[in-house]
């Protein structure tokens, strides 16, 4: 009985996310969303949840996570094109490749903190961007991007339309659940302690560097899964996948949603993509300006993002009911 109650309490957020995600094809068109955008939202949910393991838990702001997203996307494309149209080996190889790169970049960049860490990660991502455009052109297609992939297959299942959506949604639910598990584990506690007081943590017998590297690699793996799914969703890879704009967008999604809450960044991702693709049409050319203003308002008045607003509303309503 107690364990059942615990299960509900621990997994309430995951179950609610699963409900919202899996019913998305039903309600999303009602608010103007088109099919395909819902898939993209699921993919970016994966990206930002992983990013929150690094930024939200340890407080390290990476401006280079597009590198892992892009490397994985290119690897997936090349695998689908040259090896097999089955997505499973493609995803596994792509995530493994990005993980390896993340391990090396992490070892080098985590020697620094704060702005220096951010700039280093940005520099590495830009390095991969320019490599994709020059020496690796033969593989990446350079300016034209990587095209000519066959229709991706999940064994005998064609990855098209709703199939892709449900595949991505299930991945997002699974990966969100795993992120929640990490948050509740001793590892999650150590990662969050890095953000609070790294010196005290080291003097408490914890090797903070290893936990930072773990957070960095985990977040890169999430980015890699997202990058790989992007190619399954749309068989094209452009070099903008690797660009600083992509890295920046993830940061903005996280900040708007609420850094460190896991669910907040996903809200941010949903909001940003909905705004960019649906609301931008009715707002016309000024949409970026409006987005900028929204971002500023959130950062100035609600530094905790959407989740802070949710928490404030909850507090207001529950205090009147409980009389606290």
């Amino acid at each position: 009985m107690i364990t059942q109650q615990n299960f509900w309490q621990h997994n309430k957020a995951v179950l609610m996310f699963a409900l919202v995600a899996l019913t998305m094809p039903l309600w999303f068109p009602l608010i103007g969303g088109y099919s395909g955008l819902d898939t993209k939202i699921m993919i970016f949910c994966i990206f930002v949840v992983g990013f929150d393991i690094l930024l939200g838990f340890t407080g390290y702001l990476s401006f280079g996570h597009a590198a892992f997203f892009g490397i994985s996307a290119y690897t997936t494309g090349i695998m689908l094109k040259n090896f097999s149209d089955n997505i499973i080996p493609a995803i596994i190889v792509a995530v493994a490749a990005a993980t390896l790169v993340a391990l090396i970049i992490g070892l080098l960049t985590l020697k620094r903190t704060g702005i220096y860490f951010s700039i280093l990660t940005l520099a590495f991502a830009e390095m991969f961007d320019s490599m994709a455009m020059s020496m690796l052109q033969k593989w990446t297609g350079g300016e034209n991007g990587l095209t000519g992939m066959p229709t991706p297959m999940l064994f005998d299942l064609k990855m098209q339309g709703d199939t892709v959506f449900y595949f991505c949604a299930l991945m997002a639910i699974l990966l969100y659940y795993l992120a929640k598990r990490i948050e509740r584990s001793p590892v999650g506690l150590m990662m969050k302690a890095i953000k609070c007081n790294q010196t005290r943590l080291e003097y408490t017998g914890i090797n903070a560097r290893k936990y930072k590297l773990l957070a960095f690699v985990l977040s890169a793996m999430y980015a890699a899964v997202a990058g790989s799914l992007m190619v399954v969703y749309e068989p094209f890879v452009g070099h903008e996948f690797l660009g600083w704009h992509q890295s920046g967008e993830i940061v903005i999604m996280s900040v708007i949603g609420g850094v460190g809450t896991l669910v907040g960044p996903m809200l941010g991702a949903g909001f940003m993509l909905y705004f960019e693709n649906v609301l931008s049409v009715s707002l016309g050319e000024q949409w970026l300006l409006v987005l900028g203003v929204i971002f500023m308002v959130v950062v100035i008045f609600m530094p905790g993002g959407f989740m802070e607003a949710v928490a404030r509303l909850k507090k207001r309503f529950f205090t009147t009911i409980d009389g606290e």
Partner: protein
Amino acid sequence: MAILDIHQVSLSFGGLKALQNVNLKIEKGSTHALIGPNGAGKSTLLNVLTGMLKPDDGSVMFDGKPLLNVNSFDINQLGIAKVFQTPAIFPEMTVLQNVTIPVFAARDGSFNLNMFEGRSRQRPLIEFAEQQICELGLENHMHSLAGSLSRGDKRRLEMAICLANKPRLLLLDEPTAGMARHETEKTIELLKSMNDGITKVIVEHDMNVVFSLAEKISVLAQGQIIAEGSPDEIKGHPKVIEAYLGEAQV
């Protein structure tokens, strides 16, 4: 038997000789105070013991194991904990979470990949953390944010963090600095009551604290140990008086 053996340790910052051939033996289970005027090298010596500073020369042995060139976290895992001058805690975490960290550090070592283990399922460990918190009189703040505690309570929390992974040697860097009189008295009592064989090294300016706690006192001045002995011996020691009065005249 000496649990800590500092042998001929020297350290310079540029031209400044912060420590010069320091020899110090700390007896197991004793409370040993390090005193001396400002800039004498007391904190520097503590930083050498915790792995934060590397001496130019000399050796440090803790319970038969060398301490030099060992990482801070490994030194802590060996059984040395440090209480900082300004309480070092995890301010954005609850008091219970603060103390849970060393409890898991004691079980898992400096790094462990147990990513999917639920912390709350480890009832005995959590209960041990709760017990530590109660022992230091913070039971009413169990779920408060550590950053919201009063300074005295923050100090108590830091002690709970340090004691939770059962150290054998506790280093205290001015544990009562900036405290009101009654808080200081409370801290003295807390340190006195902690008599489960933990060796304590206290750096302190407040002579009241030193004389009510220490069994042995070493006096540092300009990076050298100029006197060592029981509190009574130190009180009347001419070199000590000179070192302190010398400072007062400047």
